[in-house]
């Protein structure tokens, strides 16, 4: 593929392998969905296809939706401190159903000391408060596995 000026290169890339599909998920009992919704819209504006689960989804429901929608990435939003319980479960359910390349990223209020363990458990990246939406877009573009 010819190397084109900046933005165009990405677009061509994406056109070749289809749009990046992302499931934005809100597990747990917390209802604070400002972040999830802002991210969903920013990813859409960046040309991705975004499915938002709505509130209070169990890890099982999230994994099922990811499979059904055949997404490249799951973006999980947790502000309540329940990430250590919920995230590893989402990752392992995705892997159990064979979604080995599906990227799981987490955004929310996560103490520094929890980050290494979450990454060990398969969370690709943790975005803390203050992260720009552009940073998340860039991360997904660079890390989603191109489809065959």
């Amino acid at each position: 593929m010819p190397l084109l000026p900046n933005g165009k290169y990405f677009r061509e890339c994406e056109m070749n392998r289809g749009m990046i599909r992302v499931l934005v998920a809100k597990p747990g009992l917390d209802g604070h969905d400002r972040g999830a919704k802002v991210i969903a819209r920013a990813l859409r504006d960046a040309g991705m296809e975004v499915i938002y689960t709505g509130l209070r989804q169990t890890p099982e429901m999230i994994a099922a939706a990811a499979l059904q929608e055949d997404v490249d990435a799951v973006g999980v939003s947790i502000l309540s401190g329940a990430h250590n319980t919920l995230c590893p479960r989402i990752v392992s359910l995705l892997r159990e159903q064979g979604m080995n390349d599906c990227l799981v990223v987490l955004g929310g209020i996560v103490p520094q000391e929890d980050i290494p363990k979450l990454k060990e458990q398969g969370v690709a990246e943790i975005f803390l408060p203050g992260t720009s939406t552009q940073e998340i877009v860039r991360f997904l573009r660079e890390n989603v596995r191109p489809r065959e």
Partner: protein
Amino acid sequence: MNAKMLEIKEASFEKHGEQASEKKALKASSERLTERKLSFQTVSLEEVNRLYTQADVARLDVDLDLSFPGQFPYTRGIHATGYRGKLWTMRQFAGFGTPEQTNARFKYLLREGQTGLSVAYDLPALMGYDADSPLSEGEVGKCGVAVSSLADMEALFEGIPLEDVTVSQTINAPASVFLAMYLIVAEKQGADWKKISGTLQNDILKEYIAQKEWIYPIRSAMKLVVDTFEFCTKHVPRYNPVSVSGYHIREAGATALQELAFTLRDGIEYVEWGVRAGLDIERFVPRISFFFNAHNDFFEEIAKYRAARRIWARVMRDHFGAKNERTMQLRFHTQTAGVSLTVQQPINNIVRVAIQALAGVLGGTQSLHTDAYDEALALPTDKAALIALRTQQIIAEETGVANTVDPLGGSYFIEALTQKMEDGARAYFDRIDAMGGMVEAVEKGFPQREIQESAYQYQKALERGDQTIVGVNKYAMEDQPQEVPILIIDESVRSHQIERLEQTKARRDSGAVLKALDGLRKVAERGKNTMPMTMEAVRAYATLGEICSALRDVYGVYEEPAI
């Protein structure tokens, strides 16, 4: 300044009706008056002028719109003496882990000079689930204190005399159950209900709009709120059964104006529902309190509080025909903006909180919560909570701002902003009324969409650099370690809570529990007031989860429309 900029400025002078002399002065010195940006906006992305003059308050009628503190329309405050009579109540929101842990925090705060309590419950409690529900896993005691039954509530207030200390409870969908638990604990302490004061948040409308901790469908939930109004008016006359909350609306991304407009319109909706249920406005409206956010844009916030009082007074008098001045006086609690706190360079948050709190005080708040600097990271540690309280004490007792009532009253800028807030809120009222009311507007997703849009526009402004957050999109530091210790709630809280739940269930008379829950279902089905049967169920140690599930049987659950 280039020609184009000057042109824009001139156009804006015309628009804002600047005085000719002002315009001339600027022209003469345009070289020196180059401005940093083309447009100056508040944190709500509202344009503000370079200067405000008499021309900006041409519509202001000093007698009708301002009057005096303690006089209609209360723009300048509800008390003639302001804070010279009584300072605002310093009421720090607290709750984490087990009831015992939170009880210790309460006693610590009271010892350090706090003057009222405010309880934060955990997510299972907010959603009406017990600690042992599978849905509660990972959430017990995390965002607030864990409470599943009267036994937990007894532990929470052990040694705290509820007749003397006013307590605010942040609980909404299951609020009637918590009111019952609270009153029974008070009764067991020997307190007289007639003397109990305090506040139940119980603002279900803003749950559907912003915070989204709902259980039942909206109209059934509104009925439960009206039940508490009726019950409190009769039995607990000094208690505030609702705190109409803009706080969460703002945190969800609303502008200051949207916070003001949606909150007041929610308040009007509660009054309408109360009137329809046959309640006397002069008896129940004086017990409706409000709760606003204090965000970063100092003057915009002050104008918001002043406008809130004026609008409420006018709506109560002119629309509802109130005669009693207490019915027209808007009383409110303020909390500094959690959403404005940063994880990056967290100590800076102390400064943000101090300035936001000052806005609340200059706006005449009745009570105040100052956020702790570590709240973007976790629930506050003892040390962080203490600095937050000390911030209020410094404002109250060192700065002198509490010596004079409404010190900014009459400022061209403040009065022009206050007027703009009032006009903007009324325009929102018209749109909501045209939809049939707030319940209908919420069902249509109107306020939800407005807030989402504002949240997104703000995020974009931030990423363009039009809005600044120090330490985040400007003056950021690479590789900064987390500088502060944080409070960790471990998973043992859940097992501790489950243990007490099991003991409670083993000790209670299960026949009485079943009978009370059955009775509750029946009154709910018949549309009768649910409070007396809720009290009976609580007294029999029926759990929160059991009571809410009995009501779910009758009312069903809310499903959010796609927005």
